[in-house]
C-alpha cells in the first residue's frame, strides 16, 4: 500500500524497498524491509586462504574470501575467522566483502533506489559508528542510511514502546530499557555470559568429564557405528588434506556445541549451588535422577550420557560465579563482569575537560572496569541479577511499566525453562513490581527479532524523514548526525 490510497491512519506502512542489515556475532541477517524474515541468514564468519592474507598486505594484492555454506569446505591453509565481536564489526575488509557479496551476487541490489538500515548494539562508540557510516557510504552506493539500535528494533517488533529488552545472543547478554522507542544507553547493561560462554563451558565440561572421548569435527568422519561412552568410539575418518587450520577446526567444533545447546540444555528450576547445602544437595539429586538423563551423540558416533550437567550448564547463565572453568585459559577469557557499560568514549568528543574531574561523583557513569585491576571486587551478575539491577537503575516512574514489558530474545533464550526460571527469580527479587515476560513463541522469530523490528521500522511511512542521505551526512557532519539523527 502507499500513501496515495492510504486514508486510514492505522496502517502507516509505505514500502520503499529498503534493505535491512542486522550483523550479529553469530549470524548476520540481510533482507528487504517489509518482509517477515531476512532473505539471507549467514554465519558471521569468513574463510580465507592463509597465503592470501600475506598477499593482501602487499599493495595491489587481491584476496578471495568465502562466505556462507562455502566456509564449511575443508581446504588446506584456509582460516575461518569471525567478522564481528560483541556485535561490533572487527574485520572491516571482510565485512565489506561479505556484504557486497550478498548485496551484489545474492540479492542483486539496485543501489540507487534502496536505502539501508543497519542495526547496532547500544554500546557502540561514536568513533565506531562514524567508521561504519563512512565505510558504507564509501564502499556502497546506497542513497541513504540509518543506524537503528537493536533494542529499539526489538521493541518495534513487539509493538511495545516501553519495555526492557533482554537479548541473550552469542557474544553478549544485553539488557536495555526502551522508552518511547528510544533505547536508554545509561541504564543498559551487558555481560559476556551468553552463547559463546556456554559453548566454552560445554567444551570444558566434555574435556573434563570424558577425557577419553574424542571430539572430531563432523567433516572428518567417513563412517561411524553408534556406541555409548565407556565403550570406545567406532568410526573411520576421511583422508583429508594435512594443512587444515585450527581456526577452521574450532569453527567446525562450535557447530557441535551449538547442537549440544539446542538438544541438551535445560534450565533448572532453582539455583543448583545454594547457600543451604542440604537444599542444594536435594536439588542436585533430583536433577541427577534417571528421568533427567539424556544421551548426546558426538560426531564420532560415540554417545555421552549426561543428567545433572545438562542443568548445570544452563545454570551457568544465571550463576556464572559458581562455575569456574576447569581450563584456566578459559577463566581468563571471561573476567568477572557486573554488566555495566562504560559509555565514556561515546561522548568524548564534546566533553569539556573541566568536567572530567567530576566523573567520580556521578552515579550514572558506571565505574570503569579498570577497578578490577586495582583489587576491587566486582560483583558478578548472572542473568536475573543483571535484569534486576537494570530495573532498579531505571527511573522510578518508568520502572513498573518497564517491568511489565520485559522482552526476552536472542538464540540462547530458546533453552527450555529459561523464561520460567527468570520469572520466578525476578518476582522474588522484586516483590513490589509486577513482572511480565514476553518471548515470541516462534524460534526463528526469536533470533531474527532485531532484524524483523528493523524491517518494520524501515517500511513505515513516517520513517521516510529519518533516512540520512550521503549529501546530508557530508553537509551536517558526523557529530550532529550521530547524536541527533541516529538516536
Amino acid at each position: 500500500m502507499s500513501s496515495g490510497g492510504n486514508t486510514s491512519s492505522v496502517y502507516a506502512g509505505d514500502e520503499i524497498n529498503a534493505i535491512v542489515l542486522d550483523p550479529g556475532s553469530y549470524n548476520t541477517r540481510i533482507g528487504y524491509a517489509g518482509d517477515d524474515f531476512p532473505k539471507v541468514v549467514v554465519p558471521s564468519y569468513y574463510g580465507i586462504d592463509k597465503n592470501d592474507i600475506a598477499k593482501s598486505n602487499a599493495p595491489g594484492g587481491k584476496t578471495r574470501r568465502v562466505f556462507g555454506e562455502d566456509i564449511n569446505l575443508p581446504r588446506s591453509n584456509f582460516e575461518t575467522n569471525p567478522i564481528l565481536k560483541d556485535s561490533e564489526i572487527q574485520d572491516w575488509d571482510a565485512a565489506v566483502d561479505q556484504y557486497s557479496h550478498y548485496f551484489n551476487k545474492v540479492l542483486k541490489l539496485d543501489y540507487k533506489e534502496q536505502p539501508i538500515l543497519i542495526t547496532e548494539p547500544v554500546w557502540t562508540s561514536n568513533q565506531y559508528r562514524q567508521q561504519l557510516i563512512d565505510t558504507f557510504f564509501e564502499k556502497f552506493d546506497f542513497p541513504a542510511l540509518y543506524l537503528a539500535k537493536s533494542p529499539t528494533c526489538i521493541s518495534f517488533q513487539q509493538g511495545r514502546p516501553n519495555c526492557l529488552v533482554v537479548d541473550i545472543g552469542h557474544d553478549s547478554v544485553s539488557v536495555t530499557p526502551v522508552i518511547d522507542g528510544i533505547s536508554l544507553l545509561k541504564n543498559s547493561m551487558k555481560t559476556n555470559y551468553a552463547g559463546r560462554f556456554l559453548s566454552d563451558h560445554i567444551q570444558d565440561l566434555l574435556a573434563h568429564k570424558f577425557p577419553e572421548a574424542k571430539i572430531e569435527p563432523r567433516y572428518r568422519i567417513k563412517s561411524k557405528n553408534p556406541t555409548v561412552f565407556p565403550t570406545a568410539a567406532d568410526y573411520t575418518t576421511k583422508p583429508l588434506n594435512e594443512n587444515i587450520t585450527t581456526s577452521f577446526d574450532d569453527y567446525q567444533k562450535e557447530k557441535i556445541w551449538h547442537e549440544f545447546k539446542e538438544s541438551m540444555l535445560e534450565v533448572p528450576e532453582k539455583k543448583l549451588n545454594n547457600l543451604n547445602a542440604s537444599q542444594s544437595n536435594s536439588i542436585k539429586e533430583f536433577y541427577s535422577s534417571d528421568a533427567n538423563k539424556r544421551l548426546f551423540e558426538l560426531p564420532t558416533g560415540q554417545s555421552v550420557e549426561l543428567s545433572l550437567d545438562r542443568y548445570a550448564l544452563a545454570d551457568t547463565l544465571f550463576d556464572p560465579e559458581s562455575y569456574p572453568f576447569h581450563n584456566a585459559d578459559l577463566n581468563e577469557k571471561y573476567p568477572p563482569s557486573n554488566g555495566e557499560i562504560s559509555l565514556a568514549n561515546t561522548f568524548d568528543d564534546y566533553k569539556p575537560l573541566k568536567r572530567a574531574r567530576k566523573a567520580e561523583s556521578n552515579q550514572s557513569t558506571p565505574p570503569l572496569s579498570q577497578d578490577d585491576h586495582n583489587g576491587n571486587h566486582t560483583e558478578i551478575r548472572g542473568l536475573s541479577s543483571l535484569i534486576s539491577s537494570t530495573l532498579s537503575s531505571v527511573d522510578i516512574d518508568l520502572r513498573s511499566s518497564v517491568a511489565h514489558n520485559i522482552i526476552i530474545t536472542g538464540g540462547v533464550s530458546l533453552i527450555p525453562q529459561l523464561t520460567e526460571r527468570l520469572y520466578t527469580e525476578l518476582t522474588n527479587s522484586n516483590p513490589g513490581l509486577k513482572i511480565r515476560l514476553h518471548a515470541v513463541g516462534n524460534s526463528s522469530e526469536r533470533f531474527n527479532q532485531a532484524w524483523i523490528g528493523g524491517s518494520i521500522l524501515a517500511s513505515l511511512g513516517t520513517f521516510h524523514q529519518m533516512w540520512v542521505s550521503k549529501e546530508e551526512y557530508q553537509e551536517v557532519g558526523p557529530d550532529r548526525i550521530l547524536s541527533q539523527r541516529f538516536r
Partner: protein
Amino acid sequence: MSASDILDVLNVQRGEGAPAKKKQKTNNGKTQRQSGMARELYNLLGPNTPPVSLSAGGGSSAVKDKLNLKPSPWSRIGFTPQKSEKGKSNLKLYHWVKGSKELLEQEAIEEKPYFFDKFDLKPDIPELVDEETYDRLMEEIRREKSKNSIPTETTNDDTKPASNDNNDNKTTELVNGIDKEKESRADSKEKEHKEDGDKSPAETEWSYEETKQLFVLCNDFELKWHAIFDRFTYPGKTLEDLKEHFYLLCGKILKNKPNVNPQLLDSLNSYSKSKEIERKQYLENLLTRTPAEIAEEESLVVEARRFELAAKKMLVERSNLLTLFDSPQTSQSVQQYRSSQGLTNLYNSLMIMDKHQKRKQLSFQKGSSGRDPIPPSIPVAASSSFKKDRGFQTHLQQYLSGLLKQNQANNNGIKQEKSAVQQLLAKKLTVKEEEAYGLYYHANEKLTPGVILRSGQRLPGLSQRQSTLKSVSSLLQELDIPTVGGTNWKPIMPTRKTMTKFDELLRASATLLEVKKAKDKLESEIKLIKSQRGLQ
C-alpha cells in the same frame, strides 16, 4: 449432462435414500449455484456438496465484475521526503502508488505535499537566547531562588513583586507559596541527607554550554525527558535538575516575549524539584516493601472491603426489619385478628411481605456478587453459627456441600431462587443447630423413598417372634415405660432420639428375656440331673 447421467453411464448403483437427499441439497444449493459457477459445471458436482462455499456473499456480479475489470494501475515513482530543517533534501526514494504514471507525475509537479509530512511534528520550544541574555536570566533566577529559600511568614510578600491584577493568578501564587514552604522543609531534609560533601540540588550550576545541549536535546527528543536525560552528557545532573532548569529558563525567555499564554507561564513556574524528588522517594519506598508487608496491606484492604459490605448489608436488613415491624398497624385495634380467619389473614400478609423481602435480598446478593469478588462470605458471617469453628464440618454438611455444589453446577444455566431449606442447608450449622432443625444424615441406612412419618415407622427391633414381643410388652409394663399402647410399639412422643433409644430398649429386653429363658432351662436341667444322681 448431469451427475445422474454420469452415474448411469458408469453403471453406478445408487441407494434408495440418495435421490431424496440430493433433491434437498440442490434446493438448498440453488442460491449458491447461481454464484460464480456455470450451471453445467455445478450439475457435474452431483450429490457432493462443494468443498468450499463458492459465493462470498457478494453474489456472482462481484466476481464477474472483478474478472472483467482492468487492474488499476500502480506505478513505482520517486518521491522526496520533506526535511523540515533544510528545506528540500535531494534524497529520492521510490515507492508504489496507485494510479498511472502520467497522472502521478502531474501531481508531483503540482507539489502535492508529501503524505507522511504531517506526522513530522516539532515541539514548540522557545529558542535559546544568546550567552549574554542567558547570564542575565540566570542571575535573575538565582536571585529569586535565594529569596524563596528564606521561609516567609506571609505569602503576600511573595505575591507583591509579581504584581498581578487578576484573582486567578493570586490563588496560584498562593499555592506556590505553600509549595515553597514545603520545598524549604524538604530542602533542609535533603541537606541532612547529603551532608557528606555532596552539593545540594538547589546549587547546581548551569554553564551556557550545558544549557545549549539541553535545549538541543529537548528539541531532538520532543521533550521526552527520560531520553533527554539519557543522552545528556554532562555529569552531575539529575533528571529533576534538567527539568527545573529548562522550565525556569523557558519561563524567563517566554516572559520577555509578546503575547504569551499566561497559563503556560504559570505551569512552567509551578514545577517543584524538591516535591518531585520527594514523590519519587515515596514511590521508591512503596516499591521496596517486603512481600510480607505487601500481603498485609492487601489483606487489610480486603478486610476493609468486607466490613463495608457487611455494614451495607446490615443497613438493608435493618430497614427491612423496620418495615416488618410497621406492617400491621399497631395503633389499630387487635379486634380484627381475634377470629381465626383474621389470624390467617394476618399470617398470609406477613408471609407475602417476607417473600418479597427474601426475593429482594437474593437479587441484591446476586447483583453484588457480580460486582465484587468477595461478598459471598458475608451472609455466612451474619449467621449465628459464624462465630463457632468455621473449619469444622459435620457429616451432614460435608455431604450437603457436595450435593449443593453438584446442584449448582447442574442448574447453572437456569436462574433459580433457593428454597428456604436450601438456604438453610447452605449455611454452616453446628451440631446443636442441626439437632434443633431436626436435620440428620442417614449415612448407611436404607431409606424408602418418599415421605415417612416417624409414628408409622417400623422399628427394626420389632422383628422378633410374637411370643417374645408379648413378654417384652409385659416387661415394659412392669417397668412403667409408657407406650402408645395397643399393638403400636411406639413411644408416645416419637422423636428421633426416643425412637432410637426405644429401639435399643426393645432389643435389650428381648435379649434379656432370651438369656433368662436359657438360664431357666439350664437351671432346670441341672436340677434334674442332680435329682437323678440322688445328690439331694
